[in-house]
């Protein structure tokens, strides 16, 4: 059964390359995946039983990954465990993977379409730890794969230091500058010069700040990055991913979109739901983002995030993460103490 599902997921990802969609096939696959996972992933089974609705109506909240193991296979079969950064609360979320082939397929297909649009290979400058330095970081893993798939030359620059200027200085061919938001802020704080990267250069920024740097509004950070590296804002692309997912969403500005909204790959279903009823909210209304990612074969495909979002057609307008679980009057310090 798993092998058959694996083959169907792989086929769907391949069929949706280049931005194609097949929602009927996707939805049928997601329903089958949910049923299969509800049989095998104990916390998901419990959650589905608690809700009393069909499995594909139930999404696993990301917080669950911080408290219990979420997997259809035993730890002995893990080939990799990605972990959340854990800087804003005590326990770290864990996403155990039995194989990385679907992750790779999804990451490659989405990035090829929305980030490395129109290029084969290019010079990558990565403002993040390498996979060897951060083996449990899904971001580092993905960037490491990007280096293999899309890199003509790769410079890993983390922490941010003089190597960044040395990597960018001689650029005569387009550069892809890839990193976390806080890494770009660190670079802003450190660099005292500007660059004029060759036309076709692009920037991918991902993630929040999580207390690792001063916080900068997205528009202000984009403007700063554009001015610093000489890259037009259309070529600055936000990537949305999370440790608990295997697929990524990208802003579609490189594909010609005028609004800064997330393009949802055809194999992924993104739904904005009401936080209390968990039912989809109408287009244009704020809710929380649910992502059904079939590449999450061996955990749970239906992931309920705490990110506030608005559905706009097939795209998603991301509003940011809801504040932490502590209510007014209670502290993060307490949460950390409790674990």
């Amino acid at each position: 059964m798993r092998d058959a599902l694996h083959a169907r997921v792989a086929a769907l990802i391949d069929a949706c390359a280049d931005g194609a969609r097949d929602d009927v096939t996707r939805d049928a696959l997601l329903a089958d995946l949910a049923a299969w996972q509800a049989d095998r992933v104990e916390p998901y089974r419990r959650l589905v039983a608690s809700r009393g609705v069909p499995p594909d109506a139930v999404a696993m909240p990301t917080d669950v990954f911080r408290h219990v193991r979420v997997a259809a296979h035993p730890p002995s079969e893990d080939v990799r465990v990605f972990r959340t950064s854990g800087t804003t609360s005590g326990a770290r979320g864990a996403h155990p993977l039995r194989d990385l082939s679907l992750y790779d397929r999804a990451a490659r297909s989405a990035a090829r379409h929305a980030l490395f649009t129109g290029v084969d290979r290019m010079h990558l400058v990565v403002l993040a730890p390498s996979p060897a330095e951060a083996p449990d970081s899904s971001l580092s893993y993905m960037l490491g794969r990007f280096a293999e798939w899309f890199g003509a030359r790769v410079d890993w620059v983390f922490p941010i230091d003089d190597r960044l200027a040395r990597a960018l200085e001689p650029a005569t061919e387009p550069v892809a500058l890839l990193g976390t938001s806080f890494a770009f802020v660190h670079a802003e704080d450190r660099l005292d010069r500007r660059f004029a990267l060759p036309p076709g250069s692009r920037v991918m920024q991902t993630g929040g700040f999580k207390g690792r740097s001063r916080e900068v509004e997205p528009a202000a950070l984009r403007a700063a990055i554009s001015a610093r590296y000489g890259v037009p804002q259309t070529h600055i692309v936000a990537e949305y991913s999370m440790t608990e997912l295997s697929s990524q969403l990208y802003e579609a500005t490189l594909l010609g979109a005028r609004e800064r909204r997330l393009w949802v790959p055809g194999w992924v279903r993104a739904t904005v739901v009401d936080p209390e009823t968990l039912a989809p909210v109408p287009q244009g209304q704020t809710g929380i983002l649910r992502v059904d990612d079939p590449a999450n074969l061996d955990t749970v495909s239906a992931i309920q995030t705490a990110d506030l979002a608005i559905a706009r057609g097939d795209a998603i307008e991301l509003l940011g993460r809801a504040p932490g679980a502590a209510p007014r009057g209670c502290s993060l310090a307490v949460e950390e103490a409790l674990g």
Partner: protein
Amino acid sequence: MSVESAEQALSEALDDLAVAGEALRRRTPAQIAEALADAWERIADPERALGRAARGRLPASSGLTLPMVAWALSTTLGGARESLAALAREMAPPPGVIATPHRLGALILAGNVFTACVQPLSVALLARSPLLVKASSADDVLPRLFVDALREVDPELAAAVLVVSFPRGTEALEATILHHAAAVSVYGSDSTLAAIRARTDANTTFIAHGHGLGLGWVDAGEDVEEAAGRFALDVAAYDQRGCMSPHAIAIERGGEAFARELARALERIAVELPRGPLSTQVGATQMQWRGVAAARGVLHEGDGWAVSFEPVAAPRLSPGARNVMVFEAGGLESFAERASVIGPHLKTLGVAGDLERVARVLPPGVSPRVCPAGTMQTPGLLAYADGLPAWEGWRRFVTVG
């Protein structure tokens, strides 16, 4: 109005306020207590204009339902006359010393529980300090109604209280307040407290009321149905957003049965005291909280409440909004050990059982109000706050000889 002119106007108002403090100093604490009681009673009484105004405006400003607002007003202000008289007696100076008030006090409110202003406001005035109250613009209804009520009772006294609201981060105006005040009482997050403390003069009395939470404890052998009924009120009160609200309730054994009873009790109480509307943000964290509960334990949920029973020995923070965890702590000593991790953040410990026994096992550094289940959110005006008398910092004495 520019920031500079707002600063100037505030500065002048604070000077006037300090002068108006003379009216307080001319009155005895007992007289002030009477006037305060008259004022609070005007708000407590739903038949009076100010009582109607409170019930008309507080649901929107607080986000609580009208029944919840009415419950909060009646439990906080009911019996205020006796409590204020007792408070005035408690605050009296010991023999041989003379009480002297602060020239000007400031009370900076957090806005999570709208009645949180009642005790500090009363205490400051009983200490005969004129008072500047800074409340968020979304949550200044009760202090403003109080000043209106006091104006009806004793206009001179009312002139010794000023309520202001301005957006967070208006540092120039905050600095003006901190510059004028001789005592500053601050409610809010630990980071808010730290920021204000850093800008407060070294000789200014700083009274901190930081982050906190409540927990519950059920002794073995207690009637779980009765205990659940009482704790349900603690959870439902103020929609569990206060720093006294229980996030989790520990029981020596029989947690699953207690969780079921608590769920039934919350279902019942939601009829009389329904929960207010849920913001998207709180809804998002509630969804995560409930998901964890269902995935690793047993989740009972209903219209505006949820109870989890989770097979772990440690409490988990609730998002509020009537989501409470039940767990088996493995004995009182083990529970106390968990409480020690929370330290001074543990503000209230509700107990179904032997209060004295529970209070005595608490480790150093933990000084909650240990109270019967069902009274966590109704501490009364004489209750200690953060392990200290509520008037701590508001009294100053001149010693003679």
